[in-house]
């Protein structure tokens, strides 16, 4: 089945939503309003039928990894076709401190997300589903929306709300499964992926809630509609949490490939001259404004800069702040968030945090000249390379990437600090 076969009029989906902000433009906290605006759930009448549309649309996961959604769907659907009982998990743990897009989506368009859960469950052949959301407004909005849906018998697959514990790693796929199974929510070794053995040992599809909301729109309006915005390689929009020195911080819906400068304008523009922007969150990297002002926000567009949009976190750093000090705060946080299971991470991240913490303090230091082997920047680079890829999850790799990006973006600042000076303390 191709996307051309999906006629929105047949599905009763109403007019296609606003192309520039299809998600937030479809905001409807109430089920009646959602039904009026978006229509009923466009059931496909069978496992796997939606997968071709999702593939043609080029939808990728919005939780940070950017994996093609249809591949995960197809893997779990195959397990269901082979007679396995499969499980769907909608992930809104949002452990990234600088991100609020999942809670924003759940409070503003919960029914779009929950329609997506139903459709993905149908496609994956799942008979049970979970919504794993941060305690507070996200979980509350989901419970309220589910009560409305139960009253109107909208759903075919029951959805249970499970509160995600706080913490950076709570949203990691295997930690999500552990939390739902009632175990300590920490990542596990990846030799057995959760799409083979997840919740209660069953093949499990874990999808970010934003991904599911996009899926619900693709089911209604087709792959061609989805591709009208974004880039050819990365179609559609993404929800970005823009913070720092901008006039209108918050969640903004951006087309993939938009220039960094244009994204900042959508957030009201910079309130102070900017030196750099953190993209992709605490496992992401810094884009120096001098060289990356027009960098396109997409995985492809950011690859030359060594980072990716991740889960859509964008933080604008003004010249009045010290990049090394900001980065040291972030790495200190990351070192405090490790699960403590894997030796290289448990030992390496505190060492990385300690080294960056020392680099962040401006103090005359001749080590780089007298004893280059003890130089802090070189030590930080060596430690980052040492922990890379040596853990059950990507926490060490992400922290290493952020540390390397910090050294690259704030190389001049490292030199200033060595001479006891700092950008932030300039008059």
């Amino acid at each position, binding site marked *: 089945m191709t996307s051309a076969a999906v006629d929105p009029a047949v599905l009763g989906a109403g007019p296609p939503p606003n192309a520039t902000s299809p998600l937030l433009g479809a905001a409807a906290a109430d089920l009646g309003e959602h039904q009026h605006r978006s229509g009923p759930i466009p059931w496909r009448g069978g496992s796997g039928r939606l997968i071709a549309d999702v593939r043609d649309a080029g939808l990728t996961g919005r939780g940070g990894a950017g*994996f093609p959604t249809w*591949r995960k769907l197809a*893997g779990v659907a195959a397990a269901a076709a082979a007679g396995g009982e499969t499980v769907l998990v909608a992930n809104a743990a949002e452990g990234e401190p600088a991100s609020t897009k999942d809670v924003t989506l759940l409070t503003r368009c919960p029914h779009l997300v929950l329609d997506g859960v139903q459709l993905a469950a149908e496609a994956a052949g799942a008979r049970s589903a979970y919504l794993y959301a941060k305690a507070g407004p996200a979980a509350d909005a989901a419970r309220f929306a589910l009560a409305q849906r139960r009253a109107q018998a909208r759903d075919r697959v029951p959805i249970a709300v499970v509160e995600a514990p706080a913490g950076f790693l709570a949203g990691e796929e295997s930690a999500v499964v552990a939390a739902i199974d009632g175990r300590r929510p920490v*990542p*596990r*070794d990846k*030799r057995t*992926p959760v799409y083979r053995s997840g919740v209660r040992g069953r093949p499990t599809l874990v999808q970010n809630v934003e991904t599911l909301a996009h899926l619900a729109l693709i089911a209604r309006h087709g792959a061609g509609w989805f591709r009208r915005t974004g880039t050819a390689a990365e179609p559609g929009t993404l929800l970005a949490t823009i913070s720092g020195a901008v006039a209108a911080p918050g969640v903004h819906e951006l087309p993939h490939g938009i220039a960094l400068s244009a994204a900042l304008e959508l957030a009201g523009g910079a309130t102070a001259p900017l030196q750099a922007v953190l993209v992709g969150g605490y496992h992401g990297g810094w884009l120096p404004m001098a060289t990356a002002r027009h960098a396109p926000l997409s995985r492809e567009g950011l690859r030359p800069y060594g980072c990716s949009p991740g889960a859509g976190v964008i933080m604008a750093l003004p010249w009045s702040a010290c990049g090394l000090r900001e980065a040291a705060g972030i790495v200190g946080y990351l070192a405090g968030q490790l699960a403590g*299971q*894997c*030796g*290289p*991470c448990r*030992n*390496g991240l505190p060492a990385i945090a300690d080294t960056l913490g020392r680099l962040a303090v401006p103090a005359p230091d001749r080590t780089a000249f007298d004893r280059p082997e003890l130089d802090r920047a070189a030590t930080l680079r060596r430690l980052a*390379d*040492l922990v*890379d*890829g*040596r*853990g*059950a999850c990507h926490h060490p790799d992400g922290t290493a990437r952020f540390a390397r990006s910090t050294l690259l973006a704030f190389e001049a600042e490292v030199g200033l600090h060595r001479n006891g000076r700092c950008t932030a303390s300039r008059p």
Partner: protein
Amino acid sequence: MTTSLHIDWTACRARGVCVDLLPELLEPDPWGYPVPRPDQASEPAVPTVSAELTPHARRAVALCPRMALRLVDDDPPSG
């Protein structure tokens, strides 16, 4: 097809048996955990096991007191 040595980092406690049995492939990091020698990794942190070393790698897998090692055939890649 290549074979690599998978380390379950959640199980490894730096007992060092694998580093002793596979010195051609592994060395201890500053905390005693195994790390591939720089020329022995196909990607960072994943040691590739050559045909000559496979019997030694099997012994390391069998003798790891934490049962943290597995030999994994890399093809076809799993997504």
